[in-house]
């Protein structure tokens, strides 16, 4: 075996060990944090329901909302930490994206953001875990929105294509783009460019984790004409066999999201 191949293998093994340990640690922390957060939520609610001044009411709401926010970060953390193979179902990428974009429409209009979709005609089936794929694309769409909000709006294009045995999904924005020095770390956990603890730094690393667990790829690049593009590639699902169980038939026929 070539020296470089060996080195690469060793490096990959070391990285996957590191990631596995990191994941375990993060899962443990998330669970340890969820219990105290539960108490904070309940007790602040109990206090708010009591006879307190309007100012105290406001202060308690801050405590409550911040605890909710922390809980949300823990949810992302736990999703990222999941290692078990998700139960896979046949899903149509175009439908997933359509649904997500419909959900975001209102928010996007409010921030002067327009969307163009360029979906490959026909079905783009992938085998995947619905809530995870939803989260993957939701994170990317919201990420594009966030960068456009910095420049008071702009345009997002979502493209889907079948390329050989892959489904390629591109999400392009015409915002400020990604500083080149950040490109390398952008999918690392806890990397964030947001100030004052606003971002958890987990959105994109969650995307990376989900893409990888679906045997796919994800990368980011800056566009020549400005703005950034995130590309996800997922393996095209093989068509279910002709003789299949009624459950497969139901899944394939309805292409559940």
């Amino acid at each position, binding site marked *: 075996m070539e020296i470089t191949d060996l080195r690469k293998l060793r490096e990959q093994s070391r990285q996957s060990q590191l990631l596995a340990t990191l994941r375990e640690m993060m*899962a443990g922390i*998330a*669970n340890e944090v*969820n*219990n105290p*957060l*539960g*108490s*904070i*939520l*309940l*007790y602040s*609610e*109990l206090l708010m*329901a009591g006879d307190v001044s309007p100012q105290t009411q406001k202060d308690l709401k801050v405590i409550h909302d911040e*605890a*909710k*926010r922390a*809980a*949300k970060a823990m*949810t*992302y953390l*736990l*999703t990222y*930490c*999941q290692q*078990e193979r*998700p*139960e896979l179902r046949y899903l149509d990428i175009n439908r997933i994206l359509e649904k*997500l974009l419909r*959900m*975001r429409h209102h*928010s996007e209009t409010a921030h002067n953001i327009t969307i163009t979709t360029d979906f490959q005609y026909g079905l783009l089936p992938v085998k995947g*875990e619905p*809530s*995870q794929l*939803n*989260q993957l694309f*939701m*994170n990317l769409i*919201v*990420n594009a929105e*966030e960068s456009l909000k910095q420049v008071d709006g702009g345009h997002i294009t979502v493209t889907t294509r079948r390329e050989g045995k892959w489904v390629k999904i591109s999400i392009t924005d015409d915002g400020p783009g990604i500083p080149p020095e950040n490109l390398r770390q952008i999918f690392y956990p806890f990397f*964030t*460019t*947001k100030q004052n603890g*606003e*971002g*958890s*730094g*987990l*959105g*994109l690393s969650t995307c990376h984790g989900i893409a990888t667990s679906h045997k796919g790829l994800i990368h980011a690049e800056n566009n020549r004409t400005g703005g950034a593009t995130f590309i996800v590639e997922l393996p095209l699902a093989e068509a279910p066999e002709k003789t299949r169980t009624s459950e497969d038939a139901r899944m394939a026929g309805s292409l559940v999201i």
Partner: protein
Amino acid sequence: MTTRSPLVLIVDDEPHLLSGLRRVLEKEGYEVTTALDGETALQLAREKKPDVVLLDIMMPGMDGREACRRIREVAEGVQVIYITARAELNDPLQLKRLRSEANAFITKPTTSKRIISAVNGLSRSTRQQPEESQLCRTGQLTKAEDYSQSTEASEDDRRPIR
């Protein structure tokens, strides 16, 4: 079914949470009894025959799910709500298992609003539909309500995720 206020048994190994949950439900008019572990829970279930059990399935000692099984044996028609971590529900195989054991589940950390709707929802079914509680006794459930946080994007998701 009697016309007393429904009795809720809360089982959680975290004392603060236990106390907080108790106060929330007592304010809503429920009778509440509490246990810090599965063994105590089983004892209380035997003595007091609760209508609803709020059960943390991530406790050390007696497995929460084992406790559920044994509680069902001693308290006929009891409705059980599992309190669990979001990650447990993300695993579809685990979800299937949990669905066959509990009448509902709530994820930690939870708000009092969710606890109240879950308990309200189930205690209503205990009182008004005795046939359904027959189903529950045998563990054959037709539906398990999910009072956990949705993984679907919601208005809350407008906040930056990065």
